[in-house]
């Protein structure tokens, strides 16, 4: 390979991810390090019940030794016969998982501009607070004995209401998609309460896939709304899409191209005139912090993604939380229970109550409490000025980065994210090549309105110099040959993974590997 095609020949950073290889695999599975079968129940208490299948693990002492008559505390017919799992000592496990962590890229590893995901730095102090023993209480405790939890929840409801311009907030939905589900169920309940039978939910073509799936899951027909040539909602198309069957329009603003829906007031009027509700998908709220509020734009119901906007960790896929805000008119439909403040009550300052026409529940208990606690701490840390600055710097960073790219960015003016086009290159291949430059690539091939889309959201946490590094990575890849891209990545723990093969010959557990 000529030098000028290698990562590092340019001004871009290069990256070599840790890689452990062993006998045709990377770090072996726990099951390849040891599998020990223990006998369960009456026959398991004699100390000879375990069998170390590969001789590398620790011997099992057997189970249930303190039962006199039999090995186990249950009759045999109620128990399984045996259990076979790895039996490894703590130092072996610590090394296993440390190695696995080294083969994983996080926000502190480098830029993580995954579009629509808002991969911010996650402050450490919020983790410390969530680990406090006082936070570890059971949900069935009477309200009067968990006033601290309820105080935090009440304060977060209040903060979120102010930030979104909403009158009431539920913290129960455990993720953004669960928030959407909650919001759409509220819309259904609202229409039913007013004697309306509305069967359709309108979703712009450029919306997140969850919007379509949510509407379908709640039993609505999905009406897909084509965008206009500027990448925004086409008012004429909206006019013809809404009608007496419209329960709601689900809208992301700024949309997935990062564009603010300038006609939002007309959109709201059109939907409301048709008797529908306006739902705000909070995935892109980071762009608007302190500058615009969904409630002021005419939205009736919205969700917040606290793992995006309010910096709670994404945890490799979750847990997040997806609180839902509503206007006064919809407050009675919120999930149960809600937290409210009461004065002069002998049982405490905060209590739980069931809203008058509650849709019921969307989580078995109260949602992802420890995540909510982190979100509260983040908002309290930043305050008005910090939140507004977060939004401003997120938008500045996106604009600055875009201005440095060789790829075309067809739509604007964008806010916290933009969608570049890889042009003649395959966006997925370009993304794989970016990995060799030590950056996480953007979301690829979506939204489809941009050919070979690279949906990019740097967030406010990147400095000018890391944005320069990121731009250098984009630009280096933009100049590289298709063949180089197709062979990428080279420097990551694993090389390009054959997705089609993995889906054709499914192996979903270590049992499948041994068959």
């Amino acid at each position: 390979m000529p030098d000028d095609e290698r990562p590092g020949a340019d001004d871009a950073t290069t990256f070599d991810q840790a890689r452990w290889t062993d006998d045709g695999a990377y770090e072996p599975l726990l099951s390849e390090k040891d599998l020990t079968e223990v006998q369960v129940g009456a026959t398991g208490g004699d100390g000879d019940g375990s069998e170390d299948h590969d001789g590398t693990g620790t011997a099992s002492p057997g189970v249930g030794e303190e039962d006199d008559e039999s090995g186990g505390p249950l009759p045999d017919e109620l128990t399984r016969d045996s259990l076979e799992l790895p039996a490894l000592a703590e130092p072996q496990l610590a090394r296993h998982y440390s190695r696995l962590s080294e083969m994983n890229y996080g926000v502190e590893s480098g830029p993580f501009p995954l579009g629509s995901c808002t991969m911010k730095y996650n402050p450490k102090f919020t983790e410390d607070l969530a680990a406090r023993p006082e936070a570890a209480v059971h949900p069935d405790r009477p309200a009067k004995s968990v006033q601290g939890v309820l105080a935090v929840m009440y304060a977060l409801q209040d903060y979120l209401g102010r930030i979104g311009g909403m009158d009431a907030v539920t913290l129960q939905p455990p993720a953004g998609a669960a928030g959407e589900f909650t919001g759409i169920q509220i819309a259904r309940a609202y229409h039913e309460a007013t004697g309306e039978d509305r069967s359709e939910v309108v979703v712009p073509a450029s919306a997140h896939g969850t919007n379509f799936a949510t509407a379908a899951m709640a039993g609505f027909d999905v009406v897909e709304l084509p965008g206009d040539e500027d990448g925004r909602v086409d008012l004429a198309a909206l006019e013809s899409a809404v009608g007496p069957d419209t329960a709601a329009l689900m809208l992301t603003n700024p949309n997935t191209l990062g564009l603010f829906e300038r006609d939002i007031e007309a959109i709201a009027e059109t939907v409301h005139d048709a008797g529908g509700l306006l739902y705000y998908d909070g995935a892109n709220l980071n762009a608007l912090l302190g500058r615009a509020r969904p409630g002021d734009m005419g939205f009736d119901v919205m969700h917040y993604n606290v793992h995006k906007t309010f910096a709670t960790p994404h945890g490799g896929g979750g847990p997040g939380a997806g609180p839902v805000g509503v206007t006064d008119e919809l407050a009675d439909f919120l999930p149960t229970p809600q937290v409210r403040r009461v004065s002069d009550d002998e049982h405490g300052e905060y209590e739980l109550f069931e809203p008058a026409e509650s849709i019921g529940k969307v989580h078995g208990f109260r949602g992802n409490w420890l995540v909510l606690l982190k979100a509260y701490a983040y908002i309290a840390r930043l305050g008005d000025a910090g939140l507004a600055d977060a939004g401003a710097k997120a938008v500045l960073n996106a604009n600055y980065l875009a201005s440095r790219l060789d790829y075309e960015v067809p739509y604007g003016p964008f806010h916290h994210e933009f969608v570049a086009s890889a042009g003649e290159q395959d966006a997925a291949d370009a993304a794989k090549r970016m990995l060799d430059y030590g950056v996480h690539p953007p979301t690829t091939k979506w939204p489809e309105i941009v050919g070979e889309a690279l949906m990019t959201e740097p967030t406010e946490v990147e400095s000018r110099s890391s944005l320069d590094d990121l731009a250098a990575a984009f630009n280096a890849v933009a100049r590289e040959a298709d063949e180089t891209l197709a062979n990428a990545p080279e420097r990551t723990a694993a090389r390009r993974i054959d997705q089609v093969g993995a889906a054709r010959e499914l192996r979903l557990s270590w049992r499948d590997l041994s068959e």
Partner: protein
Amino acid sequence: MTRNAQGSPFAPHTDAETAAMLAAVGVDDEEDLFDIPEGVRFDGEFDIPAHSERAVRRSVRGTLAENDDLTEFLGRGHYAHYVPSLVDDIARRQEFLTSYTQYQPEVAQGFLQALFEYQSVLVELTGLDVANCSMYDAATALGEAATLSQRVRSVSGDRVLVPDRLREGKRAVLDQYARGPGLSVETYPTVEGTVDVAGLQEAVDEDVAMVYAESPAVTGCIEERLDAVGDVAAANDALFVLGSDPVALALLERPADVGADVVVGEASVLGLGTAYGMGMGMFVTREEYLRQVPGRLVGAGEDATGRRAYTLTLQTREQHIRKERATSNICTNQAWLALRAAIHAALLGPDGLVELAEECVRLPRDLAARLDDIDGVRAPTFDRHHFREFQAHTDQPATAVADDLADAGYAVHVVGDHRLQVCVTDANAPAVDGFVAAVEEVA
């Protein structure tokens, strides 16, 4: 270097850098970057003051300290076991904590392998074939199982049967999921805290799409006729969905051996501990329903060097590809809690898991016997084997007993006018003597 003291502490820009970046973009001011019509601009304040990190920590700790310091003997779907320190230590590594869904598997092998191992542990525990890498909690996993029944061709009908003693919150979530597909959720009777098989037989007909049973049940009772429940479901072409958890499954009958089609439940019994109801749902099923599974699946494949590597697979089931035809709308799940559960399970190993599960049978048995010796208390209420918890009769009104116990520093469930529910695991076992003494005092 001057950073705007009023700004976000997590935005690294100095004033000079901000100015240079604005110039590079070609605007004078940050406000010029916002394309927001005048009519919807927000020029007010949230009235949320900023604080130092130390001030937030102090204030939140102070607020949380307003929780009464009670020793909890509480369960009913949310359980505590001792979580070893290694779980916290590994899970807090930024590579795990701050990453996201593994859309670029080549740089996410570590998390993918941990999730693959999590799936594998559930496959071993259940004897079924396919585990996803988490749902929100046990209740939403049950809801997803109900909607799955409508996508399975061998199943017809729209009635879902659940035990009459299902925990209220779980039932309410199931009702929520049932609304969209128009399922009718109905109950069948229980007797002595477990399934009344004859009653179930009477409730079932060919319109039943799913029969749900739990072991352990919310009463703490271990189900003794699971195979009969499976037979009833199978005879009516209904899915048999079993609720359990990974600690109980280390000891109890293997779901595959009693005819379960789907296993759901609270997998956060490993790795998390008490978290005001935050949990992690497991979802395990047979291979024949693979393409109808909700949520993410990690599979093993190969990379360009021919080495084994892991990736999310069968993503065509999911919302970001299939949109309104997806098997579920779930995107963000509880992956980090699955990692924690996997680490905890690995630390326990097969012996430790079985020992823990056996302790969950012995501890409530012993505690019930001690409470039963107290005048005015009869325990356990149901003549069954129990897991972690049991119900107890009190001659005095149960709320009065619970209030007095709270004054003495202990929390229990009130489940009837004269009935308490008490949960004991390794986590609160050291407090049992004090608890028994307190009950003796107040009952």
